[in-house]
């Protein structure tokens, strides 16, 4: 689908370095927020709220890029664009892809936790 890596190890290492003791907290916050966002995206599709969908995807994109999950970020961008264009069929497909990619990222991230 795209060739971006699941996790940018270099970025994560730098983040670990910067965050020090807060790193674990950060990962936990990210994981919790992301699960919530996935449900939020599904709800937005259910109510056909394109703006809410696009905004949630945009926000999810930002945090995923920052945490060092570029492929998830790219999927979020795709979702954001679908939301802006009111393409709900495609949106549902992208959310499935996001959920599967997130599972993968989450498992890998948990390995970084102390």
């Amino acid at each position, binding site marked *: 689908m795209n060739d971006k890596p699941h996790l940018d190890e270099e970025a994560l290492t730098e983040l670990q370095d910067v*965050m020090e003791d*807060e790193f674990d907290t*950060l990962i936990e916050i990210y994981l919790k927020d992301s699960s919530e966002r996935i449900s939020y995206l599904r709800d937005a599709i259910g109510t056909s709220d394109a703006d809410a969908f696009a905004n949630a995807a945009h926000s999810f994109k930002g945090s995923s890029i920052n945490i060092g999950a570029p492929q998830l970020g790219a999927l979020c961008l795709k979702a954001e664009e679908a939301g802006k264009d009111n393409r709900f069929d495609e949106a549902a497909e992208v959310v499935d892809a996001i959920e599967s990619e997130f599972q993968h990222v989450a498992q890998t991230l948990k390995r970084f936790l102390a």
Partner: protein
Amino acid sequence: MTRENDALRILIADDNDSDRLILKTLMKHLGHQVRAAANGSEAVAIFADYQADIVLLDVLMPVMDGITAARKIKDMAGEEWVPVIFLTSLTDASALARCLDAGGDDFLTKPYNKVIIQAKLGAFNRMRQMHQTLSQQRDLISERNRQLLEEQQLAKRVFDNIAHTGCLDADNIRYHVSPMSIFNGDILFACPRPAGGMHVLIGDFTGHGLPAAIGALPIAEIFYGMTSMGFSGSDVLREINDKLVRILPIGMFCCAAMIQADFQLNQLRIWNGGLPDGVLFRKGGGRDLVISRHLPLGVLNASRFDAAMEVFHTSAGDSLLMMTDGVLEVENEEAEHYGEARLKHALDTAPDAETPIDTLLGAIRSFTGEQSGQDDLTLVSLDMVVASQFHEAAERLPQSALKGPAQWYCVYEVRDDTLAQFNPLPLLLHICMEVPGLRRKSADIYTLLSELYTNALEHGVLDLSSDLKTSPDGFSYYYTERDRRLENVTGHFIRFTLTHSTTRAGGQLAITCEDSGRGFDHNCQVTPGTRVDSYSPETKYSGRGLLLMQKLGHSLRYLEYGSRAEIVYDWELAIKQPGIGHE
């Protein structure tokens, strides 16, 4: 204002918990103070009491987006510059540009990079400090400027009190001075003379502003002081020149003209040092030029300074116009000077009904067009009037509340070659003016003293016959002979004895003037039955003096063949204001 070592107060707003945590931690790592908000509205609330140096805002946030928050924060910061940096995962160029259009100063893209963030904060901090320095210096300059203006206003008040305009408001004077600058270096003073008539001084200092104004102060002091004491125009000029030579730096001087107007003699005596030609308009048409024949005041030292004034015989209705360089130098939009040729043309083609000063001002105004802001003009015109129409300003003086000397007596004698060099009248007048009640009568007293002195000197000591003055040729012979004889005076004196006492109504001043001459036939000088009012230029000049004295004094007696004259002058406390000739 600047906190030590670049530690900044930073405000972050991001609705994304993980992103906010990353940024906050990153900033703390870099040694800055951080406050964080989850949306734009919270950020604005925090900014109200947290003086952030730099604000970082996510663009898309619930409740209030970053762009609205940025606008509010910029408003709240007022004059202070608070950089706003937008946080964004936007990637297309036009979306990034919109952030800056909306009032942002820069943007940071995700993922955050520690090195780039550090560099940007450093750059913004330098700009912020520069802005602060600029603002402080601007405030400092504007404060200094305000102080300067305030000081100038204060100085102007003092200046106006000393260098007041004197009797410029007299009916026979018209003038224009520049309203543009507090101190433009031009001066214009007028002061009535105790013997009647007036002095007018118009001048233009090199330079502008405070230095020029400072030079004007002693001039005003000397001009008003000496004129009121009865000194001649030449005496005043000599004193002013001497003062300016001593106080002005080299290269600074004052182009000026002194005008001594005598309405009794119908005479103008004018000294022009460096001003443009004055113009004397004759009543019947025709003009005489009053050319500058001297260097400006403040250039030559006393031994080389020539205070001789040029004499113009006039009649009532003649009018003198004098001006400063500003008139010739005024520029139009093409930066051309007004110049002498245009001035002459304007006066040549002037309508009859208009006064020359109005003609000239009108012509200059149409020459400069809209550039009236450069007005640096000083002009004065003085009309010769019938003597009786010129009211003495001294009569209008308020009566002094001080009790001066009332009962006194003094003798003052001038001897030998001092008679040729020194005029004792101002000193004698000064002594009399110590009596408060006499101050309003300075014109009368001066006239009495000067007539007594002139008679004693010319007819007594110098033994000149006033018969000489009946013909125009004799008139000039008389004065040539006077100067010649003055140079050779030896063994002579003129002695004044002044006695003042109080009376029920006011006071009495008795003046005795004795001289060492062999006397003169004073009876020939007064034509019996001639009324003073019918005096005309055809009557004998010397006769006028005696008649005037008789009119002013209570009694006039000549004794010892005319070498001793006694006159008694009565004055009353002013309840109403009696003028000259009251009985």
